C-alpha cells in the first residue's frame, strides 16, 4: 500500500523503499482519535445483529495524510459493525464481542463543525463526521471489543484499504486500529445516548512511499 504524497506530471514517480533502523520495525501513517460510540439497542447487552458506530475527532495525524490540523478538522467515523453477540467469561466478568462487516472513513473538513450531540444518530451525527474530503476509507476484516465490569476496555480491528485521496490504490491487510473503550462505570464523560468513550489510533502502512524525482536524479543513485 502506498499513500499518495506528491503529484507532478513533469516528474517521474519512483518507488523508494524507506528503511528504518531502530525499534520500530515498520513505518506507519498514524492518526490519533478520540470520540464516542453507540450500538443499536445499547451495548449492554450486545445481541447478534446490533450495529456499532463510532464518531471521533482526530487530535494528531501523520503528515503523510497531507493535512494540517491547524487549518482543517479531521474526523474518523466507523459504522456498519454487526455484533455477533456478547460472550461473558463467568470467572473474570470480561465481555468479548466480535463484529463482522464495518467501514472506517477518515475525513478532512475545513468547516470544523463536528458535534456529537446526544442520542445518536441525530442531526449532527453522522452528518458532521462524514463531511469534507475523504482521505482514507477501509473495510474491516475483523473487529473485537472487550469490556470489563469496571468500565474499562479496548477494541482492535484490521482493515483493507479501499479508497480515499491519501491512498494510491486498494490494499489488503494494510491498516490497523485500536483504542481504549470506556463505559459509564469507568467515570468517563459520555454524552447521553452513547455507550462508550474511545481513545485510539489508526495505523496505515506506509513502508513504501512515493517520491517524485527527475531521471537525472534517478541515474545519480546508480553512479
Amino acid at each position, binding site marked *: 500500500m502506498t499513500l499518495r504524497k506528491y503529484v507532478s506530471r513533469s516528474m517521474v514517480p519512483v518507488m523508494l523503499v524507506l528503511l528504518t533502523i531502530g525499534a*520500530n520495525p515498520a513505518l506507519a501513517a498514524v492518526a490519533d482519535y478520540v470520540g464516542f460510540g453507540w450500538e443499536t439497542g445499547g451495548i449492554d447487552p450486545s445481541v447478534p445483529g446490533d450495529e456499532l458506530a463510532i464518531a471521533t475527532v482526530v487530535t494528531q495525524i501523520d503528515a503523510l495524510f497531507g493535512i494540517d490540523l491547524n487549518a482543517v478538522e479531521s474526523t474518523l467515523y466507523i459504522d456498519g459493525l454487526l455484533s455477533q453477540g456478547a460472550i461473558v467469561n463467568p470467572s473474570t466478568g470480561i465481555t468479548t464481542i466480535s463484529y463482522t462487516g464495518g467501514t472506517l472513513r477518515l475525513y478532512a473538513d475545513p468547516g*470544523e463543525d463536528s458535534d456529537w450531540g446526544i442520542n445518536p444518530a441525530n442531526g449532527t451525527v453522522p452528518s458532521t463526521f462524514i463531511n469534507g474530503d475523504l482521505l482514507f476509507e477501509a473495510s474491516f476484516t475483523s473487529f473485537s471489543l472487550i469490556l470489563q465490569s469496571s468500565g474499562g*476496555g479496548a477494541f482492535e480491528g484490521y482493515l483493507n484499504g479501499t479508497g480515499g485521496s491519501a491512498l494510491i490504490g486498494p490494499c489488503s491487510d494494510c491498516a490497523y486500529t485500536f483504542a481504549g473503550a*470506556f463505559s459509564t462505570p469507568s467515570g468517563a464523560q459520555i454524552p447521553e445516548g452513547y455507550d462508550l468513550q474511545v481513545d485510539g489510533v489508526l495505523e496505515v502502512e506506509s513502508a513504501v512511499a512515493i517520491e517524485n524525482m527527475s531521471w537525472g536524479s534517478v541515474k545519480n543513485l546508480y553512479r
Partner: protein
Amino acid sequence: MKSLLKLTLVLGLIATAGSATAVQMFDFDAQAILPTTVGSAAEAYGIIVNGDAVDTPLPLDFANFEYTIVVTGLILDSTGSTSIFSGGTVVIYEDDATAADWAVPAGFSDGVAILSGTLATFQHTMLLATVGSGQGYVDWTGGTRLNELAPADQTGWPFLTTVSRAATQVEPGYTEKWDGKVEPTEDVVATEVQSWSNLKVLFR
C-alpha cells in the same frame, strides 16, 4: 462592587439539558515504563494533544506553549491479569522552551507545573495480545492554576488510558504507549458576574 455579585453558575448543568457535546479532557499521548516486580514504580511521560479538536478543562495556549503530563511513583502493588498500582503523582507542565522528546524524559518535567495531584489507585489490564487499558482517579492538589478549579471540581478526575505494546507504538526504552486522558466528572465552567436583579430574573 456592591451591586454585583460574583456567582459561580453551574452552566454545565444548563448546557447539558440542551446539548451534551461540551466534552472536556486533557487528552495525552504518553510512553510508560512499567515495573515487573511488586514494590517498584511505574512512570509515564506524555504530551497533551487536544489542540483545537477537543476542549480542555482549563484554557490552554497550544499556539505558544507545549503541555506535558508526567506520572511518577506509581507503585506496583499486585500483578495478575489486572495489575494494581497506588501512590502515583501526576503533574501537568506548561513549557515554551523545550520540545518534549521521549529520548530525554527530563524534558517533560520542565516548565511551570500548572496542575499537580495524586493518582491514588490505578488498575492496568492487557485485554488483547498488545492492547489493554488502564483506569484510576486523580485528585488535584497543587499547581499554579489549581485555584481556577472550584474545590468541588478538584477531585475524582478519571484517568483513563488505552495501552498498546505494539512495536510500532512503543518508543525505545519504554514498556508501552498510553493514549489517554484525564477528565473532570462534569464540565468545568467559568465564573460569571451578574447583578442581583439579573439573578432574581432567573428564578421568576
